[in-house]
């Protein structure tokens, strides 16, 4: 990288940090998954704080540890989980935008509350687009700093612009800040093979608690609990929409998320309200999870409000 390049130098890659944008759409029929921020709401807030377009690229910092040196002068925003961010050793609360300049050190520590932080920069990070998106998808080997699906590495350089004049740092009003503590209820819209599951399985789903399993990743959130009876259907693989709830033979539900495989052959109960999946992305393994039913009309109303609010 040339001396004159402006942006951010990765000093320590941390646990797992990815360049993301709204996601890669339009190639699902070839098996290319979507990617995109696991907590799209927090990512949208970061871009909103910077007056960026809703699909500007940002960094998804999972579980912390990322350390960056600033090589420009610009405004950044941090939203999502509180990963004990410090700037030059001084603690910084999330959900606000602030000014940084050359030589500043940003360091994400370990999670205090939540699991994934979003670091946005005025104008977005400049990495190559692959199939119309910068979203990093490791499994598809697409997106990210070099376009081959790799997570941030020590020594990577994230180019971004210079902001010549100081903008006004902003903070998100407290009433908009989500609460990432405590158990979580996932609202499910019945769908797919819902009728193939017995009534008692549905009752069990609504009544018993589950736990978020450590094997959860960007492909899917795995839950563990007393096993559900999954019907034997001998299905052909079929397309998986976002937040579909698969129940394989072991009876432990999997919620299919951003990096899900495009096709799958397990019976499905329906789909989780996306807003709840965003909240789920901020929960650490071991979190207690419950299910509750929601109708399509109510779910769509909530999603329309979200999309309108962020101009998505």
């Amino acid at each position: 990288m040339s001396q004159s390049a402006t942006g951010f130098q990765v000093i320590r890659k941390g646990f797992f940090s990815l360049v993301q944008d709204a996601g890669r759409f339009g190639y699902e029929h070839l098996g290319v998954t979507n990617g995109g921020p696991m907590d799209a709401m927090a990512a949208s807030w970061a871009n909103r704080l910077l007056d960026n377009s809703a699909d500007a690229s940002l960094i998804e910092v999972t579980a912390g540890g990322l350390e960056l040196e600033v090589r420009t002068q610009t405004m950044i925003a941090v939203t999502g989980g509180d990963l004990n961010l410090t700037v030059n050793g001084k603690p910084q609360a999330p959900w606000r935008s602030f000014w940084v300049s050359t030589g500043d050190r940003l360091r994400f520590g370990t999670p205090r509350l939540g699991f994934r932080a979003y670091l946005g920069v005025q104008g977005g990070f400049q990495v190559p687009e692959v199939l119309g998106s910068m979203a990093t998808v490791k499994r598809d080997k697409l997106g990210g700093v070099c376009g081959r699906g790799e997570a941030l590495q020590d020594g990577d350089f994230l180019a971004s612009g210079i902001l010549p004049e100081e903008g006004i740092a902003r903070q998100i009003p407290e009433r908009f800040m989500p609460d990432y503590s405590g158990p979580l209820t996932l609202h499910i819209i019945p769908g797919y093979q819902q009728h193939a599951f017995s009534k008692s399985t549905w009752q069990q789903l609504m009544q018993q608690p589950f736990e978020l399993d450590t094997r959860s990743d960007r492909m899917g959130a795995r839950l563990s609990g007393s096993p559900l009876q999954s019907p034997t259907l001998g299905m052909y693989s079929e397309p998986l929409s976002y937040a579909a709830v698969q129940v394989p033979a072991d009876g432990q539900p999997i919620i299919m998320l951003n990096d899900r495989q495009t096709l799958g052959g397990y019976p499905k109960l329906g789909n989780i309200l996306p807003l709840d999946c965003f909240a789920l992305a901020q929960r650490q393994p071991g979190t207690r999870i419950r299910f509750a039913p929601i109708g399509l009309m109510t779910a769509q109303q909530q999603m329309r409000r979200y999309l309108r609010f962020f101009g998505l």
Partner: protein
Amino acid sequence: MSFKRPDATFELAGVNAILVRFGNQLNSALPAYLSALRDHLLTRHPSIISQVVPAYTTILVEYDPRQCRMYDLQLLLERELEMVAFENTAQCGKLVELPVVYGGEHGPDLTAVADACGLSEQAVIELHSGQDYQVYAQGFAPGFSYLAELPEQLRLPRLSTPRQKVAAGSVAIAEQQTAVYPYESPGGWHILGYTPITWFDPQASPMTPVEVGDRVRFKAVTVQQLDAWVKEQAR
């Protein structure tokens, strides 16, 4: 064989998607139909329909819930399904021939498959390479193509214990399907051979060597012939 389109049923698939199901049977006319239906829907309704993903007997239609209600979309789809011809197009897609080295280190399960099927290894190779397969679906991983239908004599359940590691390019069978592993990955299919095809290249046009509705034929070759083919492809 008649080519009447199976009746369509509709299933909810979340806040912005609907799954259309065309029965539960493999149907050799479906891949080309679903592929054409995808093009038709995306061209006709770009402001309402954002993505269309076909699979064996289903097609997922993603829409903008601000533009249209689910019920209205279903009515629209019922009309549009009739606009695309459903016919025996199994011979219409392009045919792609893939050279395969069968057996030995490249096909560690060839002997076991021959034993399980009560056939000679040569007979297994002849059966597997003796017919065309249709691309029924693409997915799971970029470019991964599900090919069917395998001859009856070769249909076996998946391995009882999947392998930790299957090499990229492995030509494998399970039940009525055959496929080629695009990347090194775990897998439970029976490996008959090896072909060095690249299934997905985002820089290439088209990005995949075959599409849903196309056909694939495997051709048994020697290691030397395969090397020559690879050199030829590189040119």
